[in-house]
Structures are given as structure tokens and as C-alpha cells.
């Protein structure tokens, strides 16, 4: 049963396991350093659909299909699905899961949704109110551009702090098992807003939230960054990653080279013209489900703090001159049920 420790963290005593997972990407993701780890790559970013929104829902269907089939599950074995995306009213998830008949909880955590959905799925399984729970998120470069920025063919320049929305989706089925990766703890983040207003610099807007959640978790669990093999943030990109390390340094927390960022892992920033790195719900989700979870399962990575970060603004709030509130949720994933050296 989940136990609250400190002010923000829940320890999952039954350590639910990520039973199976699937990751989908498109052309640009396949050309990145992690391209070969994806389960499904469709070089056609429309995924054969007539609109970008339908393409995004298709990606959700594919990643959920992969996660189910890799674990030999049927949709009716899943007790509850936690899903969300960046589109207005979360239509990527709603239309993607429409035909599956799984009880559905729609979430909005912007790009933090993978950690948010995974945390809730793990809590549901840990407290035994669900046997199997699904966590899935997606983002699509083209549907995000048209909603948040300019039409695709509009000739504008992106500033160097801008990030590239990942076209991808990741899905996890969480349940009880003796096989890794295990979910050991989750920390629900608080909204942090230090007054960044530039929607082209979301890494900077989200970094304080990530710093806060990480320091909450470390304080709640009385652990240090050295106790983990990797502290993986969602999509801070190059600017936000630098800021995170500076912010934590001020609190005397040294990540000591253990910090990685999904937005920096997924693309080759020198070759792929993505400016400050990747972003979007699909960024953290697809990197987690393609690259990180298999490594934890094999045991090459022991303990990973997965901290997906989100910027909770909308085009309306940006236009009205509001600053960008950031959020970060943390999931402690591990290859073992107990910490190394303890018990």
C-alpha cells in the first residue's frame, strides 16, 4: 500500500511493475540517436490520416497496441487508462482510446503527462484498486505547431531557445509482477512560476518546477543524487537543463553528471536543426518507453528518477501576457524492489 513520506512523496510498498511498453515515432525521431530503439516508426508523419490531429490519435492507438501486444494483454484486461496530450480538450488521447472500451481518465499536465499518468497508474496498482493500469501520452509536431504557434508553411525564424515538438507516443501497462522495471516511489509536483513569459523558452519556465520536485523528493526520501544512476528530466532542453543544474546548485544539490534530459537525448542538436532540443508529451514518453525502460529491465540502469516537466500555459494566457507556470512530477523507477545495500 502506498505510504506518504514527507510532504510530497508516496512510497509504493508493493512496487508495481511496468509490465510492457511501446513507443512510436516518425521520420525525425528515427533519424535521431534513439531511432533504432522505437517499436514503430512511420516515416509518414500523417500516419495515413487526413489531419494532424487524427495522426496523433493514430499514434496513441499504435503505442497502446504495442504495449498490449508485447505483454499479451487484451484491452478488457486493463482496469483504467490514464492519458493526456497537448491538444485542446485532450483530443489526441480521447479519440485514440475511443474504440478500446477501457475506463478512461483524461489528464492535462502538458509535457509532464507521462510522469503524471505513470504515477497515477502505479498508485492505482499499488493500492490494489486496479490490477492493470495503462499510462499513455502523445504529441505531434504538426498538431502542436498549428495550435500553439504558426501554420507549418509560415516563413518565420525560430529563436535558439525554441524546442522542437516530438512526433511520438509512449504507452506503459503497469501491474503486479516480479520482473523489473519497478515503480518504487512517486512525487506529485507543485506549480512553480518564476515569471518567464517567453513561450519560445519553455525550458527556462519548467526548470524551477523540476528543481523543486527533485529537491522535494530527495528531502522526503532522505536520499542524495549519488543514490541514483540517472536523473532524467522530460524536455528541459539545453537551456532548461543548464538552469536546473544551477538552481539545484544553489540548494547545495549537485547532480554530479547524473542528469540527462529526454529533449537532448532524442535528437542530435547539431545535425537536426532542433535548436534547444525536443519537447512535447511524446518526448518524455517515447524516450522512456523506447530507451530507458528496456535498460532498467535488463539491469544496465539501476535506479532512475524520471521527472517529466510541463509548461501549463495556453495560447490565450500567453497572448494576455501571463507568465508560464511550470510543473514536474517524479517517478522513481528501479531494476530492484529494494535499494542496493538496504535489506
Amino acid at each position, binding site marked *: 500500500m502506498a505510504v506518504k513520506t514527507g510532504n510530497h512523496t508516496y512510497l509504493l510498498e508493493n512496487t508495481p511493475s511496468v509490465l510492457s511498453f511501446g513507443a512510436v515515432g516518425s521520420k525525425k525521431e528515427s533519424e535521431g540517436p534513439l531511432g533504432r530503439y522505437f517499436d514503430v516508426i512511420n516515416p509518414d508523419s500523417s500516419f495515413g490520416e487526413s489531419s494532424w490531429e487524427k495522426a496523433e490519435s493514430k499514434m496513441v492507438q499504435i503505442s497502446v497496441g504495442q504495449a498490449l501486444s508485447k505483454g499479451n494483454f487484451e484491452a478488457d484486461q486493463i482496469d483504467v487508462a490514464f492519458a493526456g496530450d497537448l491538444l485542446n480538450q485532450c483530443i489526441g488521447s480521447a479519440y485514440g482510446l475511443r474504440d478500446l472500451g477501457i475506463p478512461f481518465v483524461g489528464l492535462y499536465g502538458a509535457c509532464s503527462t507521462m510522469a503524471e499518468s505513470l504515477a497515477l497508474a502505479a498508485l492505482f496498482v499499488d493500492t490494489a484498486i486496479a490490477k492493470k493500469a495503462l499510462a499513455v501520452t502523445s504529441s505531434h509536431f504538426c498538431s502542436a505547431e498549428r495550435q500553439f504557434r504558426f*501554420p507549418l508553411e509560415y516563413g518565420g*525564424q525560430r529563436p535558439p531557445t525554441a524546442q522542437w515538438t516530438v512526433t511520438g507516443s509512449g504507452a506503459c501497462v503497469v501491474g503486479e509482477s516480479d520482473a523489473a522495471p519497478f515503480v518504487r516511489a512517486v512525487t506529485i509536483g507543485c506549480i512553480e512560476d518564476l515569471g518567464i513569459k517567453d513561450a519560445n523558452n519553455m525550458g527556462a519556465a519548467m526548470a524551477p518546477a523540476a528543481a523543486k520536485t527533485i529537491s522535494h523528493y530527495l528531502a522526503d526520501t532522505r536520499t542524495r543524487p549519488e543514490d541514483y544512476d540517472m536523473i532524467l528530466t522530460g524536455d528541459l532542453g539545453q537551456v532548461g537543463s*543548464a*538552469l536546473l543544474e544551477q538552481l539545484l546548485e544553489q540548494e547545495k544539490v549537485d547532480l554530479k553528471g547524473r542528469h540527462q534530459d529526454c529533449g537532448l537525448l532524442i535528437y542530435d542538436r547539431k545535425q537536426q536543426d532542433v535548436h534547444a532540443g525536443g519537447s512535447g508529451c511524446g518526448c518524455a514518453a517515447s524516450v522512456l518507453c523506447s530507451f530507458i525502460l528496456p535498460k532498467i529491465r535488463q539491469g544496465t540502469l539501476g535506479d532512475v528518477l524520471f521527472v517529466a516537466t510541463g509548461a501549463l500555459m495556453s495560447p490565450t494566457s500567453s497572448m494576455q501576457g501571463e507568465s508560464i507556470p511550470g510543473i514536474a512530477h517524479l517517478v522513481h523507477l528501479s531494476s530492484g524492489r529494494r535499494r542496493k545495500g538496504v535489506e
Partner: protein
Amino acid sequence: MSQKAAPNSKLWRNMLLAFLVGGLICTIGQGVMSWMQALGLSREDGGAITSISLIFLSALLTGFNCYDNIAKHAGAGTLVPITGFANAMVSPALEFKREGFILGVGAKMFSIAGPVILYGSAASVVYGLILAIFG
């Protein structure tokens, strides 16, 4: 702190490219203009044909998925001339085609260029009044 962490745009490179591409577009315009005048058109008619052909070229390149790739490097070089205005009309028209011809193309076509048209017209009214009163 966030400003220090943010890399700056490559200002000199951007300005040079904007100058070169913007200059090239204007040179093409002047070329068309001179050609039309050589064919015996008046300066006014030649100017109209020049604008039309540049708008046509810009719209065509937008439709062929080229304009944004040029603009990525050229910046203000492609934005400031009349070609940028054409691109700002055509790109939302293409993008919002799926929402239908009335609420999609019709309503969204002016989402970027609309402010220019509105304030351009408003400014011309003000100038017209000044001219009428003091002219």
C-alpha cells in the same frame, strides 16, 4: 539567470542573410519591372504586374513547401517584402483547409495578415484626414 542561460541569435549572420535574400527578392522585382516597362507598359501598370508576380511566386513556393525553408535562414529578408505578406495569407489557408472552407480557410486566412490589413487601413484613413485638412 534565464537570460544568461539562453543562447543569442546569430545576429550578424542573420542580418547578412536577410540583406542578401531581401535584396535578391527586390532585384527580381526590379527585373520584372524593367522588363514590363521595356515592353511598353506604364510605370504604374508595370508596378502592379511586379507585385502580382512576386505574390504569385511566394504563394507557389509556400504551396510547394519551400518558402518556410528559405525563410528559416533569410528571416526578415523574406518577411518584409510583399512575399512575406503572401506567405502569411497562404500558409494559414493551407493549414486550416481541413476545418472547411468557411470556418477554416475563410476565418483563419487573415489570422496572421489580418492585423497588418486592419492597421494599414486605419493608418491610411488618418493620413487621408491629415492630407484633407492641411493639404
